[in-house]
């Protein structure tokens, strides 16, 4: 069984795999492709749900493509049965895509969204601290309201505290001094 499940996995990950003799049905490739497609659809939907700002900034087609590339590498696939656990490496992955190097703030937007996800799934007592070399608050506001003026990427850094209040994740945009004070308190605690 272990061998068969390894063979199934290998065939799933390699759409050109030729050894499909373990499948008795006709239309072997088309049938296996349904599983391949379902895995990809579920992974992509999970990423789009966790990182809506990335989908808004890149557009659906481009973001779906990035998700597909991410999921083609086995080491990026989920390692637990709970999809909400998954996505921590996606922000860093965005920096590895050459076509996205002109958007250096993407990683920080994704990190911000990952921390929001962590906050949503964590007990209310947990807080998450994020600092960015980009004007993240303005970028997030622009994602939420595309009619706002363009963001000057040189207009400053951002410091954020992310917490959950009941069912709502709340971001407090802080001054640099406030951020370091809270971080010191958090570390001391």
């Amino acid at each position, binding site marked *: *069984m*272990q061998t*068969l*499940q*390894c063979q*199934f*996995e290998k065939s*799933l990950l390699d759409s050109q795999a030729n050894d499909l*003799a*373990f*499948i*008795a*049905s006709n*239309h*072997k490739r*088309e*049938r*296996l492709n*349904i*599983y391949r497609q*379902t*895995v990809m659809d*579920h*992974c992509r939907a*999970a990423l789009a749900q966790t990182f809506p700002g990335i989908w808004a900034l890149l557009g659906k087609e481009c973001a779906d493509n990035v998700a597909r590339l991410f999921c083609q590498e*086995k080491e990026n*696939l*989920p*390692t*637990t*049965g*709970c*999809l*909400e656990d998954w996505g921590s490496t996606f922000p860093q992955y965005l920096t590895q895509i050459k076509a996205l190097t002109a958007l250096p703030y993407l990683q920080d937007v994704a990190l911000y969204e990952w921390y929001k996800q962590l*906050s*949503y*799934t*964590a*007990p209310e007592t947990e807080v998450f601290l994020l600092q960015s070399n980009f004007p993240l608050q303005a970028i997030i506001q622009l994602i939420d309201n595309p009619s706002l003026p363009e963001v000057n990427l040189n207009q400053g850094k951002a410091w954020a505290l992310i917490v*959950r209040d*009941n*069912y*709502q*994740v709340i971001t407090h945009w802080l001054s640099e001094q406030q951020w370091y004070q809270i971080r010191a308190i958090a570390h001391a605690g």
Partner: protein
Amino acid sequence: MEVNLIGLGLRHPHYQHVLEQGSSVDWFEVHSENFMHHGAARRLLMTVRDKYPLSLHGVGLSLGSADGVDKEHLCRLKELVCQLEPFLLSEHLSWSKINQTYYPDLFPLPYHAQSLQIVCDNIDLAQDYLNRTLLIENPSSYIEYTDSIYREVDFLIHVAQRTGAKILLDINNVVVSCHNHHWDPKAYILAIPSHLVAEIHLAGHSIKTLEDGTSLRIDSHDAPVCAEVWDLYAFALQRFHGCPTLLEWDQNIPEFTDLEQEAMKATRYANIAMPI
């Protein structure tokens, strides 16, 4: 809390509606994996649980994995079960984990003696640890394995009889798999001893046409229940009368009231079905 017949798969867009306006369905079912954290979602679910009977339906336990059940996942599930005390607890006859990789899908099993042993061992372990009887859902599938020796339905019956688990009979999955593998759906239903079935699922599916003009049915949960599934449900109810029935809809999810109406169609079938 009294549990009647008709339930609905509760998905995130509908929580607010259910909590504010209530529902005419009798109970709700949710995916266990969406509530394993102690976050906002769990808290929201607890408020639903205070008002309606709840069933937990798992998609991540991977009971067919040759490398065994993930103890960490089982531990998280137990914690959730202890807090929610669901009236039903179900999983799938499938696998999705190999080594440390989880694939978010339900892969089919070969049906032979070795796989039967693996599934039964995994279910025994899960039931012992959870101290609960599991309901095992028949899968929808797109491939059959070369080395299978059992019919799927016979394999499922063996699993239930050997482990004491019950069967969650997904009528849509029967229609989908029977079409894809040229099995007889009524023979599938008739093979199952009536005392083994503890829940019925209904859902919609889609059709994929292949290059040669033949088709495969896809368990997409993105459409109303089709006439063929309703007909087989009516047939199944003659055998499994009184089973709680649940409607699932996971993609292109309609407004709650539309979903509720679709679920309540099952009431009509349930009310006219006479046991044979």
